[in-house]
């Protein structure tokens, strides 16, 4: 038994640390159904009418998309239910991915033509500024400091910092019950900086890894007591393992997810806002939510767009 758990631990440690995932070449193509938990299969049923005759004069990014005839969209690949890459098929699925497809269709490009590029949190501003991605959809919170570097359309979703704990743990009920508990999140992330600056737990109890999946692994092996970040991300993990994990449900911040766009491309931003507004009004947004994050059983909070 010991040897087996050790081997599993080695595998998990080794696999989760490598930022470059093997490019979906392992073994034979999986049978349908194996990728169910990522929500990609159910979401595959969602389609969006591709707009025709879209022309955005004065938008350099749109001109670039037009001449390339295809899109490159930045996303996350390790967040279940939001933006996750299926390791067997290499396909992206989740709420953020569907929003990216919706926007692409609204701009007049077939969503099938999108190339998703994984961009880690630390590299987002630079990637957008360099023009390596046409836009970015990946749990990207709108903040004033970031507004100085990039532009945001949206918010298309409102999340809040919350805690993921073991199912049988009743001692943690909110942020004020964290004293003496080990709390884990991604290195340098806003949630862990908040835990540190507000002294929610002792400095020695703060644990930081490169990926949330490593924190969840440590939570299950009881080396940490709580994982903290936006509730949307945590619900994805809870939905994957509902027998062992639960989200506490007391959010203590407001994170507005926006679509990251090149700074000062107002024409494109207004167009994306228009696409999002339409999706919110005609029920498409709700359909996307139900097919992805809604599977965790939690209710949707419809956002109000900020048009600046």
């Amino acid at each position, binding site marked *: 038994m*010991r040897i087996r758990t050790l081997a599993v631990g080695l595998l998990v*440690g080794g696999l989760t640390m490598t930022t470059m995932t093997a490019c979906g070449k392992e073994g034979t193509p999986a049978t349908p159904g194996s990728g169910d938990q990522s929500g990609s299969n159910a979401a595959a049923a969602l389609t969006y009418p591709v707009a025709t005759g879209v022309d955005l004069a004065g938008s350099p990014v749109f001109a670039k998309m037009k001449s390339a005839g295809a899109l490159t969209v930045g996303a996350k690949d390790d967040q279940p239910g939001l933006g996750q890459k299926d390791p067997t098929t290499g396909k992206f699925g989740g709420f953020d991915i569907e929003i990216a497809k919706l926007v692409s269709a609204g701009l007049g490009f077939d969503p099938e033509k999108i190339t998703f590029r994984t961009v880690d*949190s*630390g590299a987002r501003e630079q990637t957008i500024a360099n023009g390596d991605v046409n836009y970015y959809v990946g749990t990207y919170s709108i903040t004033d400091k970031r507004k100085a*570097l990039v532009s945001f359309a949206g918010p298309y979703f409102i999340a809040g910092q919350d805690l993921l704990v073991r199912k049988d743990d009743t001692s943690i009920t909110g942020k004020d019950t964290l004293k003496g508990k080990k709390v884990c999140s991604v290195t*340098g992330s806003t949630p862990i900086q908040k835990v540190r600056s507000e002294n929610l737990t002792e400095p020695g109890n703060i644990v*930081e890894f490169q990926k949330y999946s*490593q924190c969840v692994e440590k939570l299950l*092996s009881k080396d940490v007591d709580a994982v903290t970040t936006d509730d949307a991300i945590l619900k994805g993990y809870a939905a994957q393992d509902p027998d062992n994990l639960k989200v506490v449900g007391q959010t203590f911040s407001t994170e507005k997810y926006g679509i990251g766009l090149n700074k000062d491309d107002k024409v494109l931003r207004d167009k994306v806002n228009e696409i999002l507004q339409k999706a919110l009004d005609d029920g498409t947004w709700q359909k996307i939510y139900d097919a992805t994050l809604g599977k965790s059983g939690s209710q949707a909070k419809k956002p109000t767009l900020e048009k600046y």
Partner: protein
Amino acid sequence: MDVLFNNLDLFGPFFLRTIELFVLSAVGSLIWGTILAMLRVSPVPVFRAVGTAYVTIARNTPLTLVFAFFVFAYPLLDIVKVDYFPAAVIALTVYTSAFICEVVRSGINTVPVGQAEAGRALGLTFAQILGQVVLPQALRSVVPPLISTLIALLKNTTIAAGFSVAEAGAIRSYLSERGENQLVGLLWVALGFIILVAVLSFVQRSLEKRWSVAR
């Protein structure tokens, strides 16, 4: 300048952690590496085999895997609980000592055989010959490669950032979330390392001067 002064709460303690990590693992690897070198030149075949096996394994494993083992796999064995900082020191020591061992061994090879034979003629034991005749001369002749290995160790400490040790390697992620200019932040981190390496280079030069062997 703003990026540095607005975030002194990061740069100060995080670089301090880097130095702590470096000093502890440097002392650890120097001691353990020298012991390994002694194993590798010992007359007992079993000791030699153990030393060779250790060096082969530790030197051929990527450092991130060594870290991953101590942080993710070792706790599952349920032996002794090790916190993340000591785990980082152990991982760095396990890895670096293999390189130190080979440097020290090459130093031992520079000591003329006559020295050991003279020691034996005086009736010294193997341990005495090694500890009082050969090793002191060996270490003197390998100061530059020894310091190079330590400089590599200093830079390798940044890997600990991914394994829950908040040191200089983690500064970039913090700056990114604070919306600071990361490029400028990285330049400050680089400058910090240049200063630390300069200190080590100074130590190397003064040791070389003091210990230079006339042959």
